[in-house]
C-alpha cells in the first residue's frame, strides 16, 4: 500500500559539502518500507521545479518512527529540500518500487558496494540482512575522504572497506579495484551508485560468478508505473524502473 504523507523534519545535517542527512517523522506510525524502495518528495514554492523528486530510503527507524533520507544537493529540487527547517513538513509519497533488494537470505557472505550518494539504500538493507544472520561487508567508494558518509552507521552492521579516487582514505582507485575482490568470493553482491560503477561491478560479478543486484536511478515522473518515462531495457522488454524496480538482477538487464 502506497501512502501520501506530510512528514515533519525532525533533524537535518550536512555530512559534507553536497550531501545532507534528513530525518523525517510523523504523528502516525510510518508504513512498512523495504530496503531498496524509494520515496517521491513534492517540492513546494520553487518555480523551477515541477515534478516530485525520487529519493532512496536510507534508513527506517521504527522505534523512533523516523525515515532517513540521504540527499545529494545537485539541482533546484534537492537544494530546495535542503532548505527545509526542523518542524516543517514535506509531502512524501511512499514506499515506491515493487521490487527492492532481495532480503530472503540467511547465513550468507554478502557484499554491499556503494558509490557516492549511492551508498544511501545500503544502510537499511544491511540492518535487515544482518538481522537474518548474514555476514555483511561494505565496499564504499568516493572521490576523496571528505566525500565518505555515514561510516559510523555502516560499521554497526559489518566491516567497512573503502576506496577513494585520490587515495586520501582506504585503498586508492575505484571500488572494482579493491583488493578484497580478488582475495575473496562473496555469495551475493548488492550495488548502488553511478551507472558506470554499477556496470563495472556487474562485470566483476559475472566474471566471479557471483549473483548481483543493482539499484537503478532513471529519470522519472509519476513514480507509480503510469507514465512509462523511466524505462530500462531488460532482456524481455522496456520496464519501468519506478514500478518493476528500482532493483534488478544483472541477468535481467541488457548490460
Amino acid at each position, binding site marked *: 500500500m502506497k501512502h*501520501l504523507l506530510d512528514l515533519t523534519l525532525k533533524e537535518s545535517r550536512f555530512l559534507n559539502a553536497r550531501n545532507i542527512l534528513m530525518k523525517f517523522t510523523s504523528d502516525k506510525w510510518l508504513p512498512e518500507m523495504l530496503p531498496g524502495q524509494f520515496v517521491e518528495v513534492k517540492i513546494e514554492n520553487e518555480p523551477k521545479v515541477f515534478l516530485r523528486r525520487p529519493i532512496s530510503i536510507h534508513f527506517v527507524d521504527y522505534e523512533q518512527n523516523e525515515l532517513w533520507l540521504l540527499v545529494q544537493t545537485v539541482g533546484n529540487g534537492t537544494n530546495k529540500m535542503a532548505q527545509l527547517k526542523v518542524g516543517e513538513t514535506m509531502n512524501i509519497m511512499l514506499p515506491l518500487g515493487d521490487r527492492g533488494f532481495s532480503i530472503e537470505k540467511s547465513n550468507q557472505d554478502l557484499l554491499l558496494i556503494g558509490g557516492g550518494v549511492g551508498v544511501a539504500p545500503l544502510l537499511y538493507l544491511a540492518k535487515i540482512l544482518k538481522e537474518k544472520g548474514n555476514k555483511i561487508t561494505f565496499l564504499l567508494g568516493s572521490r576523496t575522504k571528505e566525500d565518505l558518509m555515514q561510516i559510523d552507521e555502516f560499521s554497526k552492521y559489518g566491516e567497512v572497506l573503502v576506496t577513494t579516487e585520490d587515495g586520501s582514505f582506504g585503498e586508492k582507485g575505484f571500488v572494482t579495484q579493491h583488493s578484497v575482490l580478488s582475495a575473496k568470493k562473496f555469495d551475493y553482491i548488492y550495488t548502488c551508485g553511478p551507472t558506470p560503477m554499477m556496470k563495472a561491478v556487474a562485470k566483476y560479478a559475472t566474471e566471479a560468478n557471483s549473483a548481483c543486484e543493482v539499484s537503478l536511478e532513471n529519470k522519472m515522473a509519476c513514480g507509480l508505473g503510469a507514465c512509462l518515462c523511466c524505462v530500462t531495457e531488460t532482456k524481455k522488454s522496456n520496464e519501468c524502473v519506478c514500478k518493476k524496480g528500482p532493483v534488478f538482477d544483472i541477468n535481467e538487464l541488457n548490460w
Partner: protein
Amino acid sequence: MANLEVKLGNLSLKNPVLTASGTFGYGTEYADFIDLNRLGGFIVKGTTLNAREGNPYPRMAETPSGMLNAVGLQNKGVDYFIEHIYPTIKDLNTNVLVNVSGACIEDYVRCAEKINELDKIPSIELNISCPNVKKGGMGFGTSPDMAAEVVSNVRKVYKKHLMVKLSPNVTSIAEIAKAVEGAGADSVSLINTLLGMAIDAERRKPLLSTVTGGLSGACVKPIALRCVWQVANAVKIPVVGLGGIMCATDAIEFLLAGATAVQIGTANFIDPTTTVNVIDGINEYLDRHNFSSVTEIIGAINK
C-alpha cells in the same frame, strides 16, 4: 451539493472529470490514493493493434512548469489489453475509455473493432495527435482530410461513443475539429501535447532520445484554453478540455471556455489525488456561486 452530471452526447458522466490517456496507467496504479469510482471516467493508456516497445530512454525532461515526454505509445497491444487488463477494470463503477492509436487507418479500424466488442467500455478516444510516433499518430491529426478519413473509417465499425483527440500542432485546430465532426465523431478532446524540445547545454546533447517530444503540464494551459474556446465556438459536438489542469480553478476555466468535461493529465504525477480534489473543488465553486448544475457554467464566458 450541485448536480455534477454532464452528458457527452450519449455518454453520461457522473461528473465532468476524466483522466488523460498516458498519465493514469490503467487506473489501478492510482487506487491506493483515490477511489476510482468517484471519477467521471478514466482513459487508459494509448492502445495499438500490435505491441509497441516505445522510444529509447531518456524519454522525459522536466521543463519550466511542465515536462516533455517521448514515450512513444509503449503498450502491449489490444489483445493483451482485452485479456489481461479489461477483466481488472470492467467492474468499476465509472466510465473506462480506451485511447486508440495506430500507424495506418487499417490499424485504427481493427483496434477499434476489437474494443467495440467490450461491453463495459462505453467509448474510445481516437488518438490522431501523438507527436512521438514516426508513422501515423499526429500525421493523421494535422490535415483535415486525413483526420476525416481515419474518423469516418473507424465510425463504420465503432458503434459507441467516438471521441477524437486533437493536436494543437496545427494552424487551425477548429478546422480539424470541424472535419472530424463531419466524419462522425461524437466529441473531441483537446489538446494533446505540444511539440517541444530541450537541450543539455553542458553536454551539447538533446535531453530526449528522440530530440523532440510532447510538452505538457501547467505551462500549456493558456494555449489549451484558447484551443478549447476556438473549437467550442466552431463545432456542435461536445468538447473535452485538457492541457495543464492542476487544480479545480483550472478545470472551471475550461468549462467556462466551453468544455463539457475535462481531463486531468500531468498533474497526476505531482499529486495523485488531483482528480478528486478537482471534483470537490468544482462542487464547492458551484455552491459558492449558487449554481445548481455544472451545466450552467459550460461556455459561460460567451453568455
